[in-house]
């Protein structure tokens, strides 16, 4: 696969901007996670953080031209969902497993 | 037939899931996927109590298309609301009586409502007769309910039958 071209200028530029935007998104979610003000707000911020992380990993995959991080992205999406459900259920019912 | 392959739709979905997961369509993976798609529904059959019948597959496909387009519109609309002046956001809770019955239909409808423009399903009454919806622009609750009814609920009612 040596004859394949390196990732070009346009793509690298877009990736750089993409990383910047998603990092900003992570910081904003983190801000909401810190200031709260309520528990549901924090759960929502955490959920958004998970999704932002998935976005970051997908970008990294394209940047490195390897699908090494695909499984990591899938697992974060999975566990993020499970975590959100567990936390929300805890708030609603007071316990998680009945 | 019913005993051997209790949930054909679930089996197909599992096979698709497996092939996507391994990212390959080699004969070996298809065989392995088919085996899993056959065994998993067989051994979890008691867990899946609801049986759905797709009465009109084409209508379901059309509904999926509508929803996908609406998701695109929803994203742009919500994006404009986020950036735009705050006065344009007039949030309200809306109570919507449900006509669809059955687990699958209700959850499909609730998910659709959340994914589409300016509405979010917030709570379902225990008897599944009413949904509380939160709308970003809720000046006209009647219009929102009529819209949901016509666009999503009616096709769902027509296309799916749950026993």
């Amino acid at each position, binding site marked *: *696969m040596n004859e394949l*071209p390196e990732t*070009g200028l346009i793509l690298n530029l*877009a990736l750089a901007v*993409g990383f910047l*935007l*998603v990092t*900003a*998104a*992570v910081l904003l*979610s983190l*801000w*909401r996670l810190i200031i709260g003000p*309520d*528990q*549901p*707000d924090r*759960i*929502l*911020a955490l*959920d*958004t953080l998970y*999704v*932002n992380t998935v*976005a970051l990993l*997908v*970008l990294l995959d*394209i940047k490195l*031209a390897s*699908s090494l991080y695909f499984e990591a992205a*899938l697992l974060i*999406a999975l566990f993020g*969902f499970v975590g959100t*459900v567990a936390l*929300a259920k805890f*708030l*609603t019912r007071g316990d998680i497993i009945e | 037939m019913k005993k051997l392959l209790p949930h054909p739709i679930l089996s197909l979905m599992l096979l698709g*899931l497996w092939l*996507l*997961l*391994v*990212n390959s369509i080699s004969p070996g993976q298809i065989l392995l996927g088919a085996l899993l798609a056959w065994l998993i529904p067989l051994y979890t059959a008691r867990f899946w109590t609801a049986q759905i019948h797709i009465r009109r597959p084409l209508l379901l496909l059309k509904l999926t298309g509508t929803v996908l387009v609406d*998701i695109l519109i929803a*994203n742009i609309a*919500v994006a404009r609301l*986020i950036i735009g002046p705050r006065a344009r956001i007039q*949030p309200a*809770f809306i*109570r919507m009586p449900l006509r669809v019955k059955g687990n699958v239909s209700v959850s499909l409808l*609730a*998910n659709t409502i*959340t*994914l589409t423009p300016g509405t*979010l*399903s*917030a*709570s379902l009454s*225990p008897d599944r007769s009413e949904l*509380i919806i939160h709308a*970003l622009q809720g000046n006209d609750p009647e219009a929102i309910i009529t819209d949901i009814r016509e666009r999503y609920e009616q096709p769902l009612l027509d296309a799916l039958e749950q026993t």
Partner: protein
Amino acid sequence: MTTELTTLLVELFVALLILIGAGFTLLGSFGLVRLSDLYERLHTPTKATTLGVGSLLIASAVFFTWREPGVSLHEVLVAVFLFITAPVSAHLIAKAALHQRTPSHSGLPPETLLEKHDGHGTRTKPDTDPKQKPSQTD
């Protein structure tokens, strides 16, 4: 050369998708900080983020399909998963918030209705007096 042209086109397409996706991801989180109460904030991540990450995943699928032999579709799996789970998380968080009577600008639904929707009975009601009026904080 045609191969160079396709390379350019694919790169442009992928770059565009990356920009759209990253932009929407940022918008989702921006809404999370900007909007004024929890129920409004719930709208933004579920909508903007699904499309944002969706675009990024399509970009990834196109990129790897073009770059490596064979079709790369496993990104679709993450996208489908996110599309299914995002509304469910939002619904559960909204339900938890309603259960806790988190104040909102839109006014909570009537208490009798919420009582019905809690539907678990055993948990004692929150000791704070549930307010029907929206709390005007700003």
